[in-house]
């Protein structure tokens, strides 16, 4: 990270975003600064500790250098530099959620009341009182978010959404933009630039959470009918209020992306953003099959997520795999070893239509929207090569595309 450019990125408010008192804001801002600090000042030394200390010690004991990411972990886990780095990473995550939750907890009754005062722009919310969230969402609190995606703590609850909307902004250190919509915006940009003749009329965002990646589609394809599905009642109630408050029309429903209620051949574009790594070994295949089923002939499937491990060296894979062991991301590591191209073929897509590509981050555009988004830092971020362990390695989002 540049020595001179300071990250003063600030989230922009919308009617249902929780507000922070001065102290709450300080607590949350600290987390953002702390995460940046770990990445820019502590992480670089980790490779040194591996090269200079852990790897040679391992080689001395085992007679060879670590050959895969599990061997790298074996070598690293007793090293104090690694222990310090990964401790602080885990703690930063815990502080992040707690700093946001304290604020949401204080204002939850007001947030719940506020939902009904937001004027509708025609969006809808369809909750299923009999819905049972999939096991892989409720087994652990994914990315240490207390209560999880499907957590409900009150009648007409919106807490999980409020916690996520503010928390994910801090997690991404503002790189997702002032409205957390970089991923959706990046995919929209990719579609409009790469497939300028593609005019989708019906779009669905799978695992939409608070709709942060969904709304760019409503904005950039204003003629289209935009849908978002997720498994959490409180998350979806928040997503609906958030969209209405931001004046963008979307239809949210409580569904399992691996077994949806939508009809066959009914969508032109099916997308997801960092959903796949939070599913499971069986569910991911089912999600791909559902995508094929609900797409019209000629329709497109795009999944934006993390790149497969593929040819990355063991050390790089190990760093990226830390999320699995230290951040409650149970499927993260396993998913990176899957052949998603084969999964797409198994789902029915033609091999010729399936491709991995990179959708560049839309961060440069944010410099125009808010003073806190320093243009120099945004430019630097959009152009630099990200190291393993940093946010969005590659400087863009890996997209898997297939056409029916």
């Amino acid at each position, binding site marked *: 990270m540049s020595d001179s450019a300071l990250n003063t990125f600030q989230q922009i408010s919308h009617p249902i975003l929780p507000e922070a008192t001065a102290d709450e804001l300080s607590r949350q801002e600290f987390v953002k600064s702390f995460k940046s600090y770990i990445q820019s000042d502590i992480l670089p030394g980790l490779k040194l500790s591996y090269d200079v200390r852990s790897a040679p010690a391992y080689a001395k004991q085992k007679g060879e250098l670590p050959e895969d990411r599990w061997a790298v972990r074996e070598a690293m*886990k007793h090293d104090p530099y690694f*222990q310090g780095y990964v401790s602080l990473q885990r703690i930063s995550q815990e*502080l992040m959620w707690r700093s946001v939750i304290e604020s949401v907890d204080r204002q*939850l009754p007001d947030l719940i009341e506020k939902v009904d005062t937001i004027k509708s722009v025609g969006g809808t919310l369809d909750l299923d009182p009999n819905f049972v969230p999939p096991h892989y969402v409720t087994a652990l609190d994914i990315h240490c978010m207390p209560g999880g995606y499907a957590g409900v703590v009150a009648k007409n609850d919106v807490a999980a959404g409020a916690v996520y909307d503010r928390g994910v902004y801090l997690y991404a250190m503002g790189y997702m933009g002032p409205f957390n919509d970089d991923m959706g915006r990046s995919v929209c940009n990719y579609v409009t630039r790469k497939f300028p003749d593609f005019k989708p009329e019906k779009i669905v965002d799978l695992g939409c959470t608070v709709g942060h990646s969904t709304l760019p589609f409503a904005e950039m394809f204003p003629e289209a009918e935009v849908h978002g599905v997720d498994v959490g009642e409180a998350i979806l109630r928040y997503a609906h209020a958030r969209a209405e408050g931001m004046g963008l029309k979307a239809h949210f429903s409580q569904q399992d992306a691996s077994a949806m209620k939508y009809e066959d051949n009914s969508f032109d574009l099916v997308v997801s953003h960092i959903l796949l790594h939070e599913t499971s070994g069986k569910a991911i295949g089912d999600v791909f099959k559902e995508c094929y089923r609900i797409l019209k002939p000629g329709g497109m499937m795009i999944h934006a997520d993390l790149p497969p491990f593929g040819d990355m060296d063991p050390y790089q894979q190990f760093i990226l795999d830390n999320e699995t062991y230290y951040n*409650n991301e149970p499927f993260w590591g396993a998913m990176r070893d899957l052949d998603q191209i084969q999964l797409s073929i198994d789902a029915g897509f033609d091999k010729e239509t399936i491709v991995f590509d990179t959708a560049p981050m839309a961060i440069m555009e944010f410099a125009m929207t808010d003073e806190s988004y320093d243009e120099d830092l945004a430019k630097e971020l959009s152009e630099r090569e990200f190291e393993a362990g940093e946010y969005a390695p590659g400087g863009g989002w890996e997209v898997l595309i297939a056409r029916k």
Partner: protein
Amino acid sequence: MAVTKTVRGKRPKIYDNQGLDHLMAMTTALVQEVAVLRDRLDLAERVSESKGFVLQDEIEAFKLDQEALEARELWRTKYLGRIYAIFEQEAAELAAKDTSKKYQETLDHIAKS
């Protein structure tokens, strides 16, 4: 309707001595609190300066009443809850009989089903 603060899923054991994991959690939370405090004081100084008021002198002259003593004591209780949150997490895991073995079993299960 209290928003959940503890995390389901056994926290990884990072240091050989579990006490060090606790210590890192506590001291880092403390680092955060010091920053928050510093921010607030900085803000107070800026605000008062903008109103033409010399804060330092007024602080020295001020007398705390009973209400103030109670409010500050209540704050300390919550503050300690934040610093020692790691123990709340530990207790929740113990109450749920959560273990590292269970975490690994969950990973294996999710990879397959």
